[in-house]
């Protein structure tokens, strides 16, 4: 399958598509929450609409001597990074930005999230967000390297950093099949940079909401929506890099991308129900001493296979 670049005019449509799927993810989370609370599921379905209405009616807050520009940049950074991530992800046969370094582009953006979440915590001049922002950095130190090596693995197998080439290289066999460790580590990385589920220490209710402790109104909406958008963008990238992208029988390629992304996204969203938060200060040892060697081993196996294949 060849991926062709479409005109930049499609960019707003790509953005709209990302936000639509992200909204569906938020609705799914609402449904799961309603089920766990023993409430009618239909009410949970409306959660994104209700929360949006609530936050758009709510007044914004500014704390005293806050670093407002940095706080805003941080708050808007999550959604912006997610939107920029999806430009390189092929939607079936089309992509809006067919970059030769698509994998690096995605990596660079996920590193920007360090700054975004930390700035959102630093900005309000308040202890709880400040401590939570630093906790996110501590967590990032543990998840980022395994994530980077997990990203490299499919690139080695395809011999290219272009996402279209990654998809083409999976015509026979999805990368997930022969690089499962890299796939799992990548998914964990997506959950971690979205500060979601087990990696949501920076937004925990045990820390008065952490980074979000002082945010109200549209400021809070941007961070909340940004997390769903990041999960969505991460899932879409994961589908492209590990789950064969648009490859699949019967259905058109773009529909396969949509179906696979939705399934992976649903799994990541549901993860929040199943796991408690991992404490960043306890994550470092297993991340550096177990996960990192494992993913390097995965990379070695893939490199050897690639060399042996010639």
């Amino acid at each position, binding site marked *: 399958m060849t991926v062709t670049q479409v005109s930049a005019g499609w960019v707003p449509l790509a953005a709209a598509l990302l936000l639509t799927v992200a909204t569906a993810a938020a609705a799914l989370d609402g449904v799961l929450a309603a089920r766990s609370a023993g409430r009618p599921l239909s009410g949970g379905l409306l959660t994104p609409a209700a929360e949006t209405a609530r936050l758009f009616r709510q007044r914004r807050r500014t*704390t005293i001597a806050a670093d407002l520009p940095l706080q805003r940049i941080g708050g808007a950074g999550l959604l912006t990074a997610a939107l920029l991530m999806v430009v390189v992800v092929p939607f079936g046969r089309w992509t809006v930005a067919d970059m030769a370094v698509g994998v690096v*582009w995605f*990596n660079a953006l996920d590193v920007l999230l360090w700054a975004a979440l930390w700035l959102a915590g630093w900005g309000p001049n308040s202890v709880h967000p400040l401590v939570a922002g630093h906790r996110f950095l501590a967590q990032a130190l543990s998840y980022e390297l395994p994530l980077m090596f997990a990203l490299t693995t499919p690139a080695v197998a395809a011999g290219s950093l272009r996402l279209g080439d990654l998809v083409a290289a999976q015509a026979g066999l999805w990368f997930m099949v022969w690089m499962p460790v890299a796939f799992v580590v990548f998914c964990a990385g997506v959950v971690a940079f979205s500060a979601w589920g087990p990696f949501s220490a920076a937004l925990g209710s045990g820390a008065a909401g952490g980074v979000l402790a002082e945010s109200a109104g549209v400021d809070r909406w941007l961070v909340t929506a940004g997390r769903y958008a990041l999960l969505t963008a991460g899932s879409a990238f994961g589908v492209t890099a590990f789950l064969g992208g648009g490859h699949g029988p019967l259905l058109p390629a773009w529909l396969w991308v949509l179906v696979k992304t939705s399934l992976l996204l649903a799994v990541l969203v549901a993860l929040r129900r199943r796991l408690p938060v991992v404490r960043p*200060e306890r994550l*470092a040892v297993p991340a*550096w001493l177990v996960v990192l060697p494992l993913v390097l081993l995965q990379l070695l196996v893939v490199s050897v296979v690639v*060399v042996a294949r010639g």
Partner: protein
Amino acid sequence: MTAYLSAALMLAVAVGGVLALYAVHRRTAVAARPLPTLPFLSGWRPTEHALSRFEARWYPLTLLFLAFDVEMLYMYPWATVVAQIGVSAVVEMFVFLGVLMAGVLWAWREGALEWV
């Protein structure tokens, strides 16, 4: 190059969208002006500003991270040529990574992975 044009356009869409949301919020919120407030400290007035010379006890880990992060600069170009260069590329890179992993073990022994 047109790929980066699309990316720039997406950035414009994101920034424009965020600004538009702020504008919409001004109209829909009960008050357009944000509420000035002290930070939330369980109901108390802060004794001092939170922005301070904050002790990040995990900073030795950041140095270890940087060592690996710089390594990533080589990793990406390397990934594209493994198949062409063959065995020597794999051996060289993994010897290098092995050296870095030895550094990780040393840092672990020195206690850089635990900070509280």
